């Protein structure tokens, strides 16, 4: 019966709604054309690129494409393997420190690669405390772990960075699953594994596939991690595009590689689209199962072990990073004595001093405010455009599939290429807006939009139509239906989307470094300024600035989560 109603409703919608759909889509399409298609077209046109080069560069192309694919596949599998249990535990169970741990897993996502590398180094590097303890205990000269320069290091860094994607996408969906479906399976005698395998997993499939695609694309186009952690033996397409553009000035080859990367992205997006189409049955908050306590000692043990592991995995490097911001290694470093070393606040107080009255000195408050401003603007712009897209696109059909595939493209677009495109496009008429500060949030929105849409779309399309029909029958207008039916149902994913956009903007450095004007410094820019000069104080201040950045990120996420509760009249979680 519901299906019949569904169809009837769809017919009513399609009749009068085609026009307003196009109206909703106007803005996102215009945005895409101006800030993506046109700059990219410009840069490829002026690079002097020829398809005939393909033959000459086969070796480079084969090597980089196969390595990009190989490491991204491994990274994605590992990230999912840890991320799904983590999402389940973090969203479906109630335990002490749950919200802190959730927050903690989101922080690596925003940190510049240099800082994460320094954090890992302080912990597990050859001079880090883990190796020092190991050497002291065993008398072994050889360090226990050497992660830099290895594939293992790359994979570890990718998991550390991208785990939050899986957690933030699968977690809310998991906790919003209709509990009756699982209960029904249990009643019918299914074992827990059977319930998971034949009920939960298929229901979650669209979300898992979405998360996997995003993680895969992030890993496939990985840049900073490959350069810093992997060392020089590893090169992804993105790294090669950067080298060809900025080191060799071989623009034709760079453009060719950028197009190949785009084509690969398109292929993955299409492939994944093919596999993910079933909607996810969400339920209103009142019917939702409450986060529960573990059931039995075995489950308690398993969950506790996972929580402990997550704590160590995330808190370890972040604490060692924080510690190095408060630690002065003293003057007599060579002797490794702790006599002059000690805890200090000097690195933080040093941030507010402009030594040498440098013109490009970045006051930390200015950098913080700029970063937050850009992040909030990005979040509003991308959630706004994302909602327009999600509601503007038809519920099903070819057009929707194609749009969803195309939306993934920005993630597979080389930041170097697009940055050059922006420089070409926004510095001459009719779009000579290049110097404005707003170009940064608009560029960040491009990266955030795929996340926002991928987060919102499964949720919105899975709202059962009869909810809206009932509201319509009771006399509610479209806007009122959206406000009273849709919004409460998608509140959690909306918050997730907003946080994604916020954190993406906060940590984005690729486009920022290309479009950067010294008048509008952001936190990552400030961190790099300190790290680019020798001296213990510079290192300490870079770490101090990173701590400021972590705090800003954590505070931002907390505020978004709290305020969303007020927005829809639902208390915090």
């Amino acid at each position: 019966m519901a299906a019949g109603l569904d169809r009837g409703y769809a017919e009513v919608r399609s009749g009068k709604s085609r026009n307003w759909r196009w109206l909703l889509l106007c803005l996102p399409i215009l945005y895409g054309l101006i800030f993506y298609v046109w700059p990219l077209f410009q840069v490829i046109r002026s690079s002097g690129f020829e398809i005939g080069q393909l033959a000459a560069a086969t070796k480079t192309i084969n090597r980089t494409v196969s390595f990009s694919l190989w490491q991204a596949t491994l990274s994605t599998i590992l990230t999912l393997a840890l991320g799904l249990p983590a999402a389940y535990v973090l969203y479906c169970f109630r335990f002490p420190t749950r919200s802190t741990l959730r927050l903690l897993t989101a922080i690596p996502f925003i940190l510049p690669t240099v800082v994460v590398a320094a954090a890992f180094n302080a912990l597990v590097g050859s001079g880090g405390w883990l190796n020092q303890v190991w050497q002291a205990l065993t008398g072994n000269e050889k360090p226990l772990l050497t992660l830099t320069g290895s594939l293992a290091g790359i994979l570890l860094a990718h998991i550390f960075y991208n785990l939050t994607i899986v957690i933030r996408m699968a977690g809310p969906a998991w906790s919003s699953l209709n509990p009756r479906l699982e209960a029904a399976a249990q009643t019918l005698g299914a074992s827990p594994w059977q319930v998971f395998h034949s009920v939960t997993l298929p229901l979650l499939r669209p979300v898992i596939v979405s998360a996997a695609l995003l993680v895969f694309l992030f890993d496939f186009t990985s840049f900073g991690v490959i350069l810093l952690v992997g060392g020089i033996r590893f090169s992804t397409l993105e790294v090669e595009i950067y080298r060809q553009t900025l080191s060799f000035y071989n623009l034709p080859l760079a453009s060719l590689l950028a197009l190949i990367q785009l084509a690969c992205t398109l292929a993955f997006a299409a492939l994944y689209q093919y596999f993910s189409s079933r909607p996810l049955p969400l339920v209103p908050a009142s019917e939702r199962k409450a986060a529960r306590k573990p059931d039995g000692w075995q489950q308690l043990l398993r969950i506790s072990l996972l929580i402990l592991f997550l704590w160590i995995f995330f808190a370890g490097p972040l604490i060692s990073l924080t510690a190095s911001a408060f630690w002065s290694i003293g003057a007599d470093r060579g002797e490794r004595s702790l006599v002059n070393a000690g805890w200090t606040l000097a690195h933080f107080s040093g941030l507010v001093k402009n030594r040498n009255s440098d013109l490009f000195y970045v006051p930390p408050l200015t950098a913080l405010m700029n970063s937050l401003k850009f992040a909030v603007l990005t979040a509003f712009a991308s959630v706004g455009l994302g909602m327009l897209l999600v509601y503007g696109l038809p519920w099903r059909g070819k057009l929707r599939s194609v749009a969803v595939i195309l939306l993934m493209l920005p993630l597979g677009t080389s930041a170097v290429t697009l940055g050059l495109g922006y420089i070409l496009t926004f510095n001459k008429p009719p779009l000579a807006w290049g110097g404005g500060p707003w170009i940064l949030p608009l560029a960040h929105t491009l990266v955030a939009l795929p996340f926002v849409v991928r987060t919102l779309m499964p949720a919105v399309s899975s709202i059962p139509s009869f909810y809206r029909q009932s509201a319509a029958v009771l006399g509610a207008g479209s806007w009122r239906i959206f406000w009273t039916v849709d919004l409460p149902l998608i509140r959690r994913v909306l918050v997730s989307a907003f946080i994604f956009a916020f954190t993406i903007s906060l940590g984005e450095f690729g486009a920022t470094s290309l479009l950067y004007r010294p008048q509008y410094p952001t936190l990552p820019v400030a961190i790099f300024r300190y790290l680019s000069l020798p001296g213990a104080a510079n290192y300490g201040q870079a770490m101090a600035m990173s701590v400021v950045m972590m705090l800003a990120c954590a505070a931002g996420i907390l505020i978004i989560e709290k305020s969303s509760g007020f927005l829809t009249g639902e208390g915090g979680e």
Partner: protein
Amino acid sequence: MTAEVHAPTLLRVMTHDSFAISADLVKQFETEHQAKIEFIKAGDAGAALNKALFTADNPLADVLFGVDNTFLTRALEHPLFEPYDSPALANIPPQFRLDSGNSALPVDYGDVCINYDKSYFQQVGLPIPTRFSDLTKAEYAGLLVVENPASSSPGMAFLLSTIAAYGPEGYLDFWQALRDNGVVVVNDWETAYYTNFSASSGRGPQAMVVSYGTSPAAEVIYASQPVTESPTASVVSENMCFRQVEFIGILRGTQERQLAEQFVDFMLSQPVQEDIPLQMFMFPVLSTASIPDVFVQNVQIPEQPASIDSELVERNREKWLQDWTEVMLK
């Protein structure tokens, strides 16, 4: 309202990311010439030049600072700059004036040298290496970290100094020997210095790092607690350092030629030249500019730095890098 007041003229100056200058000096220039300077930072030296070349038809800026001697040919060939015979050139020694056409005018110079951890060498009782071939000896095994020349400009400078020492035919054998002796290659200076170098905050495993000749002075100036002596020093033996000279030029097609000239003169003036060491950790090219004490005390200046013809670099850059990569990554 007075008729005299007009809006300041905008001058756009593109630089590499390491450019720094005292705010007062810039303000003074702006007041004096009724100008507003907009600085555009465009990546490292190579990236900034490439961006300028890429937008040459529709220039992003009026002046470009930061092209170094290894990239000079690329800039002059295009040609990217308009010549300008600045009167300030009279006080700049000819050794720095590598472009006789005065399209690119020298501003500062510095050396890329191996820095070493003083106390490590003292404790172990190891002599400081005095020539490249020392680095392939067993007692220095695994003690040196260098940057990838394809992604780092000090890395490129160091590669060039080995090419200058061994010639385009012999340098690969030297690198093979270095590799056999456990040299560590990382992608950028930040990692080499802060993660791998034993005398930095990262307390890494390598006691020698390819860095700048002025880094020991920075270690004193930016120490966590006041120190009198740098924990690091440079190896400055004959031909072991590579000298970088950085140039400024007026970009072809500027609408503000006069103001651009004034800015070039300003960069070569005594106050700015004397500001350079503490801001950018480079040395002024102006012979009359004085150098701060902390540099005199902590920086070793090589008497005979390695040098290599800019045109030779431009013709062979890609081949050298590729050959090097083959040897080091196989």
